[in-house]
Every structure is written in structure tokens, then in C-alpha cells.
């Protein structure tokens, strides 16, 4: 009976881990991705999201949900008018490397 229970728990952990694991990991490590200059900033801010890879359409669509998409430059995606909640939500995405203040060229 114990072996059957262990098997069942392994299955549940694997499925739940696949579905929720990366999100939980992203949330737990979100603080490390947000630049100190953006912490507690008043009002919406303009940011550059740095990814460890070239962004695809999927990443642009994900980040667009938090502000105004303002183009890409290599591994960097510029997003304007992002609220504090949006900043934390973007930082919670495990595939984001870092979020820094936007500096126009």
C-alpha cells in the first residue's frame, strides 16, 4: 500500500511540478531580476527587459501585457509605462534575466 501511495504522489508531484514549478521558481527568485533603481519607484516606469536569448513573438506578447512594447535590440526588449505590479509580474518570469531602467539611445 505504501508503494502504491508513493507512486501516486510521484505522479502528482511530476504533473504539478511541470505546471506550477517554473512559475513558483520565478516568483521565488523575482527579487534578483529587478534592478534596485526600479524598486519602489513611484508611478509607471519605462524599462528594458534583458533576456538570455533573442526574444520571439511569444516573449513580446507576454511582456506586452504589462506595458507598451517599444521595440527590441538584440536580447533586450523595451517596455514603456509599466506599473509596479507589472514590474513584479515581469520579474517573476523565470526566463527573464534582468529588468533595468530604459535608457533611450
Amino acid at each position: 500500500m505504501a508503494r502504491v501511495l508513493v507512486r501516486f504522489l510521484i505522479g502528482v508531484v511530476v504533473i504539478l511540478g511541470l505546471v506550477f514549478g517554473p512559475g513558483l521558481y520565478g516568483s521565488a527568485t523575482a527579487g534578483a531580476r529587478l534592478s534596485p533603481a526600479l524598486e519602489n519607484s513611484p508611478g509607471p516606469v519605462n524599462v528594458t527587459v534583458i533576456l538570455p536569448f533573442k526574444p520571439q513573438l511569444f516573449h513580446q506578447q507576454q511582456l506586452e501585457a504589462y506595458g507598451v512594447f517599444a521595440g527590441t535590440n538584440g536580447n533586450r526588449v523595451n517596455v514603456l509605462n509599466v506599473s509596479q505590479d507589472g514590474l513584479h509580474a515581469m520579474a517573476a518570469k523565470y526566463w527573464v534575466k534582468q529588468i533595468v531602467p530604459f535608457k533611450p539611445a
Partner: protein
Amino acid sequence: MRGGELQTSPATAAPVRRRVGPGSSRLLPLVPFVGLIVVWAVAWAVVRPKLATMPSIGQVAHTTQHLWSTGELWRDIGASLYRWGLGFVVGAISGVALGIVAGLNRIVARMLEPVMTFFTAMSGIVWLPLAIVWFGLGTTTVTFVIWNSVFFLVFANTMLGVRSAPRLLDDAARTLGAGRAHIVFHVIVPGSLPHILTGLRSAVGFGWRALIAAEIIGASTGLGAMIYQSKEFLRSDIIVTGVIFIAAIGFVLDTFILAPIERSTVERWGLVSTGRAR
């Protein structure tokens, strides 16, 4: 006998049976998988096909790591599991509930059996073109197709299970003064559990396969959509990655979730024989 030793003559000695130890027997199911990987590696090393035809194990591993690190694989796995879970739960609950209700009435059961068999024989995927017209592309269409695959199978098995519950138990419970509701929940439903669980286990596989097929045409996210979109770019490494995850998730759902439930309920209660080799 000498010195307490038991001696047997060679003619009467029992043949020595080599037994597979418990540790070795647990590893036996891995042997075919290891064999497949070896065949794949050797075949690829000999033939050296193009990426469009067949990727190497290393390419698949690299692609899996890349797709996971970019979040795309997680998105597609999450979308597929969400749709499957929704369709399966709704299909299972509605199938079991309506199956019990229909099975309790002999006339209704006889009336519905042929039409249920008719619809069970129909794969849920045949509803896809109509579902796209009704619901458009996306989660609703895919979930409807899964519900279709699950509901009729579970309904038919549940109805059969209710009809097959031993009448002797029903009569015995009535003799002891049990009411109708008590008989249904404490006699008929437990008695039909083997059929219900068989239906649910089959529905897991049918629903998962219907999901993948539905996502190929009816959705833009999910493992099925990932595979279909990759063919446009001749990315067989992404296709194989998707196929491996589809098979692995289906395997986990059946072997590590449904099978333990079956083993700890109907098998433990002696309602079905395990038929396992000694």
C-alpha cells in the same frame, strides 16, 4: 545423514531456478527504453540524416533545454494539461453521473446502449470541424473535443457497471431494510467501480490523444500546436521533443496516477483480480 547435513542424490535434486532479484525486476521496464535510445543513436550515427528528417539525441536534448529556458515548452505543456484536465474532469463527472442515473433504470439503459456504443465508436476528433465552426479556434474547441472523447466512454462503462452490479447484493440490502439512496451509494456505485475505473483509465489515453490531434488544427498553443508549427520550418528536433513530452506525460498520468488509484481501490477490495504473474 552425516553431521547434520542434508544430502540429496542428483536424481532427486530439484532443478535450481534462477530468480530475478527484486532490484533487477524493477529495472526490467527500463530495458526497452534503453534499447530504443541505443538503436536511435546507432542508426543516426550510421545514416547521418538531415535535421529535417530525424534529429540526433544530442540535438533533441539541446532543443529541449532551449525551449524550456525560453518558457515556450512550459507554456505549451501548461496549455495542454489545462485543456486536458478541464475536458477530462467535466467529461468524467458528467459521464459517471449520467451513467449511474441511466443504469439504474433498465428501460433507459436498454434504450441508450446502442446510441452510446454508436458515439463511443466515434473518435472525439471527428467533431473538430463542427467545433471550430461553433466555438472558433482555441481552448473551448479543444476542451469540447476532449470532453467528447471522455464522456461517451465513461458513460457507457458506468452504465454497464451499474447494470452489472450483482443483483444479489441489491436484494440483500433491501431485505435488511436499506432505502433506495443507501442502495445506490453503498451497494450499486461501489459494485460498479471496476467498470467506472476501467472507463476512466481508457478515457485518460483517449482524451490525451484527442487533445494533441485537436491542438494541431484547433489551437495556437499546446504540445500539438508546437509539433504542427515546427513542421512548417522542418524542425524535426522540436517535433521529437514534443512527441517525447506527449508520451511521457501520458505515461505518468496512467502509470503514476490512474493505476495506483485502481490498485488501491478495486484491486484492494477484491473486485477485480490482478492477474499478476507470481
